[in-house]
C-alpha cells in the first residue's frame, strides 16, 4: 500500500514538474470549460440570417420582417429576384430564403403559401432553421387564423344582433298576425252565422199549372171561338162547338176565379201569403246577413290593414335577413382547414437531392485533412526538434525558412497522397465529384497548408512530443467544436459566432460545399480562397517568428543541458580529477 502511494506521489511530482504536462492537465479543462461557457452561456436567439423575398413589400411583409428582427434574426431583404436570394444561401451569406406572398390576407379557401429555401447539405442546421423560423410563421399563421375566426365571429355576432333586433319585429308581426287571424276568425264566425237557408215550405203550384192550363185552354177556346166567329158561315154544330167552347172557357175561368179569390188552402192568396211569409223571413235573414257582412267587412278591412303592416314588417325582416345573409356570405373562408391553417409553409432545397454522403462529404474531407495535417505538422517538427541532429541543423548554411518549408513540403506530400486516396475513393460514391475535383483539390491543398503550419507552430511551441500531440489534438478538437459540425455555429453566443466565422475549418468546409454541392466556380469563392491563403501566409510568418525566438531559447536550453550533463559527469569522475 505504501509503495502504491509512493509510486502515485512520484507520478504526480513528475507530472507537475513537467511544465507542459502540468499546463495541459490544468489548463486544458479550464480552457475547455471556459470556451464552452462562453459559447453556450446564452439565451439569445440562434444567429440565423434570413433572406426575405416578396413580390411587393407590403405592410404584411414588412411587419413580418420586423417580427423576425425582433426575434434576433438577421433579415436580409431581396428586392430583385428570388434567385438572388437562393444564390446567397449557396454562398452561406444567409441560412434560409423565405419567399413570401404580397399579403398574408386569406381571401378564399386557398391558404397562402410561404416557401422556405434551405441548404440540405447543412444537415444539422436545416431542422433548426425550419423549427425556429417556422415558429415565426406558426405564430403568424395563428394570428391570421385568429383574425379569420374573429371575422367569422364578428359576422355571427352581427347576425345575432340583427336577428335579435328583428325578433321584436317578428313578435309584433306575430301579434299582428294573431290579431288578424282573430279578426278573420271573427269575420268568419260572422259570415258563418249568416243564415242563407231558404224556407223549406213546399208550395203547391198545381193551381198555377191548372190555372195556366185553364187559361191556355180558355184562350184556345176563345181563339177557336174567335175563329168560328170569323167564319160566320157556321153551322150549328159550329155554333154548338163555339158555345161549348165558350162554356168551357167560362168554367175554367170560373175556376181560376175561385183559385184567385179563395182563401183556403190551395188558393192563390194562400199561396201568396205563404210566399210573403217566406219573403219576410228571407228579408230578415238578408238583413242579418248584411249586418254580418258589414261587420265582417270592417273586420276584414282591419285585418287587411294588419296584414299590410305585416307585409311591411316582413319586408323589413326580409331585408334584415338578406343583410345578415349577405354579411355571412361575405365570409369567404369557409374551409375549416384554411381557417385553422391559413399559411402553408413549403420547404424547397436549393441543391439537388443527394445522399447524406453528399452533404457530409465536405465536412469529412476537411476533418480528415485538418487532423492529419495538424498531427503530421506537429509530429514532423517534434521529430526534428527531438532528433539528435537538430543542433547540427543550426550549423548548416541554410536559412530558417528552408527548414520550415521542407517540413511543410514533407507534410504536404503525405497529405497530397491522402487527398488523392480520399478523392479517388470518393469518386466511386460521388459521381458529381469529377468536374469539381481540381478546385476541391486546390482548396484542400490550401487548407492542408494552414493546418500544417498550425501543427508546426504547436510543434515548435511544445517541448515533448506527447504534449505537442495532445495540444495538436486539442487544437483540432477546438476547431472542430466551433466549426458547426458538432453543434451548429448558430447556436453559440454571438461574439464567439463572429470568431468562428474566421475558423479556417469553417471557411474550408464552406468552400468545398459551395464547390461540390452548388457547383460554384473558383471565381465565385475567390474571397474565401484568398482568406485561406492569407491564413497560410500569416501562419508561416508566425512560425518564422516562433522559430526565431526558439533559436534563442534553444541556445539557453542547450547551455543548460550541457551544464547539467557536465556537472553529473564531474561528480561521476571526481576521482579522475
Amino acid at each position, binding site marked *: 500500500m505504501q509503495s502504491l502511494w509512493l509510486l502515485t506521489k512520484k507520478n504526480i511530482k513528475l507530472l507537475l514538474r513537467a511544465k507542459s504536462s502540468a499546463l495541459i492537465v490544468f489548463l486544458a479543462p479550464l480552457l475547455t470549460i471556459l470556451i464552452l461557457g462562453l459559447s453556450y452561456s446564452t439565451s439569445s436567439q440562434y444567429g440565423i440570417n434570413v433572406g426575405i423575398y416578396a413580390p411587393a413589400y407590403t405592410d404584411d411583409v414588412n411587419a413580418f420582417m420586423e417580427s423576425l428582427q425582433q426575434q434576433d434574426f438577421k433579415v436580409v431583404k431581396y428586392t430583385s429576384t428570388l434567385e438572388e436570394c437562393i444564390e446567397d444561401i449557396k454562398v452561406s451569406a444567409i441560412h434560409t430564403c423565405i419567399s413570401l406572398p404580397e399579403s398574408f390576407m386569406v381571401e378564399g379557401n386557398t391558404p397562402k403559401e410561404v416557401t422556405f429555401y434551405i441548404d440540405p447539405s447543412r444537415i444539422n442546421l436545416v431542422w433548426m432553421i425550419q423549427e425556429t423560423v417556422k415558429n415565426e410563421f406558426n405564430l403568424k399563421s395563428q394570428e391570421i387564423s385568429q383574425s379569420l375566426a374573429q371575422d367569422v365571429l364578428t359576422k355571427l355576432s352581427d347576425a345575432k344582433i340583427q336577428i335579435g333586433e328583428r325578433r321584436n319585429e317578428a313578435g309584433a308581426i306575430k301579434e299582428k298576425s294573431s290579431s288578424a287571424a282573430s279578426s278573420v276568425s271573427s269575420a268568419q264566425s260572422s259570415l258563418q252565422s249568416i243564415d242563407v237557408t231558404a224556407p223549406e215550405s213546399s208550395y203547391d203550384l198545381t193551381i198555377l199549372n191548372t190555372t195556366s192550363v185553364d187559361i191556355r185552354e180558355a184562350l184556345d177556346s176563345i181563339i177557336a171561338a174567335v175563329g168560328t166567329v170569323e167564319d160566320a158561315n157556321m153551322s150549328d154544330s159550329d155554333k154548338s162547338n163555339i158555345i161549348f167552347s165558350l162554356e168551357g172557357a167560362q168554367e175554367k175561368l170560373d175556376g181560376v176565379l175561385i183559385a184567385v179569390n179563395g182563401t183556403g188552402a190551395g188558393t192563390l192568396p194562400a199561396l201568396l201569403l205563404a210566399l210573403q211569409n217566406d219573403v219576410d223571413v228571407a228579408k230578415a235573414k238578408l238583413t242579418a246577413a248584411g249586418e254580418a257582412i258589414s261587420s265582417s267587412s270592417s273586420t276584414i278591412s282591419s285585418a287587411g290593414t294588419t296584414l299590410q303592416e305585416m307585409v311591411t314588417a316582413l319586408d323589413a325582416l326580409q331585408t334584415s335577413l338578406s343583410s345578415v345573409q349577405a354579411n355571412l356570405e361575405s365570409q369567404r373562408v369557409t374551409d375549416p382547414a384554411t381557417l385553422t391553417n391559413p399559411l402553408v409553409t413549403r420547404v424547397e432545397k436549393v441543391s439537388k437531392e443527394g445522399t447524406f454522403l453528399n452533404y457530409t462529404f465536405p465536412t469529412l474531407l476537411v476533418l480528415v485533412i485538418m487532423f492529419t495535417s495538424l498531427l503530421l505538422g506537429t509530429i514532423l517538427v517534434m521529430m526534428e526538434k527531438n532528433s*539528435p*541532429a537538430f543542433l547540427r541543423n543550426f*550549423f548548416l548554411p541554410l536559412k530558417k525558412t528552408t527548414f520550415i518549408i521542407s517540413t511543410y513540403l514533407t507534410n504536404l506530400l503525405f497529405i497530397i497522397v491522402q487527398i488523392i486516396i480520399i478523392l479517388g475513393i470518393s469518386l466511386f460514391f460521388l459521381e458529381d465529384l469529377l468536374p469539381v475535383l481540381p478546385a476541391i483539390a486546390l482548396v484542400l491543398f490550401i487548407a492542408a497548408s494552414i493546418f500544417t503550419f498550425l501543427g508546426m507552430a504547436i510543434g515548435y511551441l511544445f517541448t515533448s512530443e506527447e504534449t505537442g500531440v495532445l495540444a495538436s489534438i486539442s487544437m483540432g478538437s477546438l476547431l472542430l467544436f466551433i466549426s458547426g459540425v458538432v453543434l451548429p455555429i448558430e447556436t453559440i453566443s454571438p461574439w464567439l459566432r463572429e470568431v468562428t466565422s474566421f475558423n479556417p475549418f469553417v471557411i474550408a468546409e464552406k468552400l468545398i460545399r459551395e464547390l461540390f454541392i452548388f457547383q460554384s466556380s473558383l471565381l465565385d469563392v475567390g474571397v474565401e480562397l484568398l482568406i485561406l491563403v492569407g491564413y497560410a501566409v500569416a501562419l508561416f510568418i508566425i512560425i518564422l517568428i516562433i522559430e526565431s525566438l526558439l533559436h534563442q531559447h534553444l*541556445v*539557453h536550453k542547450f547551455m543548460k543541458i550541457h551544464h547539467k550533463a557536465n556537472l553529473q559527469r564531474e561528480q561521476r569522475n571526481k576521482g*579522475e*580529477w
Partner: protein
Amino acid sequence: MRKTFIKRESLASSVGLIELKGVTKEFGKRKVLEDVNIIIEEGDIFGVIGESGSGKTTLLNLVTGFIEPSEGETLYHSKVTQGPENLNANLPKLKKFIGFAPQHNSFYPKLTVKENLLHFGQLYGVKREVLINNIKNLLQIMSLYDERDKLAEHLSGGMQKRLDISCSLVHKPKLLVLDEPTADLDPLLQKEILWLLQEVNKQGVTVVLASHHLDSIEHVCNKVAIVHKGRIRNYGLIDEVKKPFLKDYFTINLRPGDSKDKVLAVLKTLPVKRIVDEGNRLVIYPNDTQKTVNGLLNFIKQESLYLHDMDMRKPSLNEIFERIASE
C-alpha cells in the same frame, strides 16, 4: 593500424583563423565569459579546459558563431576576403568553413551512415562528385566503410562518435570544433577518437576541442586555453602554459631495505637546497637540477643501488588545473 600521438606544434602556422577580441558573453544578467582575447591559428589543435560552468561550451559556441558575443567580436580570418570578417555578421557565408560536433551525437539515427553523410554534405552545398569522394575518404579514415549501409542507431558508441565527427567534416571545413568528443567513451575509444582528430588535423583542419580529459588534451593539442570562472586564465602553447607551473623539486622512490642513508649522504654532497624524507620517498629541492640528477644517478650506478622510481615530470595539465581551481 598503430595509433600513436604526436605533438602537432609543427603544423601550427602563424596565420590566425579565428580571433576572439575582447569578447564578453552574458546570459541575462549572468556573465558567463569576460574579456576573452584568443587567436586560434590555422593548423592548431586547440584545447579548451575548464571546470563545469566555467564557460568552455560558451567559448566553443562563440567560436562556431552559434551565439553572438554581448561585447567584443569574433573574427574569422578568411583567405577568400583577405581580411578578418565578423563571424556572426557573416555567418551564413562562413558556416561552410566550420564543422561542429556537439557533445551528444548529432545525426539522424534512422538514416544509414552513408545517408547521413550525404544528407549533411548536400546541405552544405558540396558538389555530388566531390561529396562522394569526401565521404569515401571519411569512411576510410573513420573506419566506417564497412558500416556505411547500417542505420546510425545500430552502430556502437565509438562508431557513432566517429560518424558524428564525419558529419562535421563531410563538407571539408577549415575549422572543426568539438565539444567533449571523448565524453562517455571508454579509454580505448577515447584514444581512437583523439588519434582521428590528429589525422584530421594532418589534412589541414584546425581543431578546437573542449574536454574534461586533460591528459588527452595534453597529448593531442598544441595549444590550450584554461577557462576559469568566465576568464581565460592561461592560454597558448602547452609548454608556455605550463611554464609558470614548473616544479622546483623531483622525487625518488626507494625500495624498502635499499640504503636510504647512502643516498641521503650523497645528496648532501650535491647542490641541493632541501630534502624531505617521506619514508621510502624522498622529495629533493635542488639548486641545480641537472648536476644533482647526474650526481645521484652516477652514485646509484657505482653502488649498484636499485632506484625504484624517479619523477622529474613537468606539472601535468591536471595538476595545473587543480592548482588554478583551488585558488
